[in-house]
């Protein structure tokens, strides 16, 4: 087999996988703290992309340079969607904190449908073009021998830096420690003086910020967005989180990369038609042998 082709597919999968990982982190963080699958997370990603589009449109009109637009638009998207994540938790999940497990799940599905339709009605049902904000540099392509396009390179670098920062933050800061403590045992953490409600809000804010970043990166990579882009991206990221072991932060990253690579190699060596089929076969296989995911810890069910 052609080695160059293999490397190209490898990096293609890594790029796609790092986006899955960014979104999967949001699923895994929230699950780790309150044991909820936040199905509206994909929509947060979509709203991030839309916010960036609106801000980029405005700045472009005012004549900002492309690089500046990218940074400002990404920051605006992160702030705005963090507010969405925070509010969403307060409205849809906090009142159901002590309800049976199924209730917040249904609430999450409702939130997802609501946000999709809200954007559909308030913005547009059509696809809208997203400005090409990522730098389009020819020498990068040539330097990497077409293995990595400029936007792929940019996505990889940004998402890896973000993920490393997140892990350091969780590991070494007071807030990160409080978060881990809450994840281990919320009641105990509260007894020791940790404000659990505050930690939960922070978790939603961080998760949403990561999803927004993913949304901005993918939107400027693909060049167009509509209200429905969050669904498949959200499903894939959720899959990645389960694959890696839901609740585990390194697991989400590993799961995302594994899924991205599996899809890329399937398209490259088998056929694009089987991309989703083989990716999900892999998921089933891994879950048969490791029911808690690649890095998941086995937990005693509290039933």
């Amino acid at each position, binding site marked *: 087999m052609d080695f160059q082709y293999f490397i190209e597919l490898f990096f293609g999968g890594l790029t796609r996988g790092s986006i899955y990982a960014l979104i999967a982190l949001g699923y895994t963080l929230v699950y780790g703290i309150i044991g909820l699958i936040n199905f509206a997370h994909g929509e947060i990603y979509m709203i991030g992309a839309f916010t960036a589009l609106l801000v980029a449109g405005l700045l472009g009109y005012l004549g900002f340079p492309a690089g500046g637009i990218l940074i400002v638009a990404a920051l605006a998207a992160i702030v705005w969607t963090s507010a969405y994540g925070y509010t969403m938790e307060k409205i849809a999940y906090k009142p159901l904190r002590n309800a049976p497990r199924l209730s917040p799940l249904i609430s999450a599905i409702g939130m997802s449908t609501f946000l999709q339709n809200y954007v559909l009605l308030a913005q547009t*049902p059509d696809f809208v073009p997203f400005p090409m904000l990522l730098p389009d540099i020819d020498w990068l392509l040539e330097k990497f021998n077409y293995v990595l396009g400029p936007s792929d390179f940019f996505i990889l670098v940004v998402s890896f830096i973000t993920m490393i920062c997140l892990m350091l933050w969780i590991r070494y800061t007071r807030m990160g420690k409080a978060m881990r403590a809450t994840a281990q045992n919320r009641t105990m953490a509260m007894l020791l003086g940790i404000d659990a409600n505050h930690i939960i809000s922070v978790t939603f804010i961080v998760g949403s910020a990561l999803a927004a970043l993913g949304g901005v990166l993918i939107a400027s990579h693909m060049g167009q967005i509509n209200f429905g882009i969050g669904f498949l991206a959200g499903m894939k990221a959720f899959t990645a989180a389960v694959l890696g072991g839901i609740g585990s932060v390194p697991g989400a990253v590993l799961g995302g990369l594994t899924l991205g690579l599996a899809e890329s190699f399937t398209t490259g060596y088998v056929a694009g038609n089987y991309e989703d089929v083989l990716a999900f076969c892999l998921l089933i296989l891994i879950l048969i042998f490791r029911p808690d995911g690649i890095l998941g810890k086995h937990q005693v069910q509290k039933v």
Partner: protein
Amino acid sequence: MKRVFLSAVAAALLSMGLAAPLQAADTIKIGVAGAHSGDLASYGVPSLNAAKIVAAKVNAQGGVLGKQIELVIGDDQCKPELGTNVATKLISDKVAVVMGHICSGPAKASLPLYNDAHIISMSPSATTPGLTAGGANPMFFRTIAKDDDQAKLTSRFMLESLKAKKIAYVHDNGDYGKGFCDNNRALMEAGGAKTVLFEAITPDAVDFSPIVRKLRHAKADIIVFGGYQPTASKLLQQMRRSRVMTPDVGHDGLKYDAFIKMGGEAAGGVYCFYPKDTASLPIYKEARQAHIDMFKSEPGSFYYNAYSAMLALINAIKEAGSTDTDKIVEALHTKKVSTPLGELVFNKSGDAAGLALSVYQIKGGKFVETNYSVTLD
């Protein structure tokens, strides 16, 4: 009090129920079915506009057979399962004929229902060959060239004009897109061109980089794309960003201004196929002006096909002298009608004869007609 109110409501409902059939006797109902909302609304709304314009025009001139035309509108969002719902609704509303459906999927799904009810449907845009093949559906007509007619032109154009030897086919696994690729593949292979890639992509995927890399290594002379315009523009942008510059050939679904808007620079140079430009015909200008007057904008995709379908249906009802399905079918097969797409009559299988197809290329942000064209019979 409550009881009085209820009986008043009941009386009102009853009187409406009585009034409806009386009114129905004075109108000829034409069903308009297609995607009027959702992702693909841009394919269906122009046809709905065409139906409204033609109906208003005919009604202003005294209607047809002395009766006014009443439109019964059904939205299928281009989904087969909604298509059958719409068909059931139109049939129970007792429409005389149906103008629709827009997409091939719902058109195919709803045909058995129309056949059972003995109702004519005429699509302005469904191009899957099977719908009319071998006269399978004697009550189905269309005012657009079918995929294999398009493919005849596409393959001739690629072999003769582009001298293509190695072809890559990318489709979205839908009826419309895969059909276009299948037909082209058969004709191109018969013409001696090699297939280097034949693959589907997921339209909603977060990125297309694996297929882009595969396309680079396939080293095709040309890429034949079968699918809808949002997917096409996304794929093209990703290809051009990775400097895969292979020329691209698509079908009539790309001959649409939104494609240029979405694709931007990446859409430049793309070839697509569409009915020959008939903009110089007076009736075409009239149709365009009517749209501008009524909707304050330029008509969208399939507008003229739908306008022609409405004219053909109304003309056939007039020629038949009644809304009897068999007589209308007879009239469609024998009487020529002037439409914005030229003089049309329908052949035995239900396809419009007299349509002409041309090759267009995107140059400088516009579709430019090349001198490649064929007239169908």
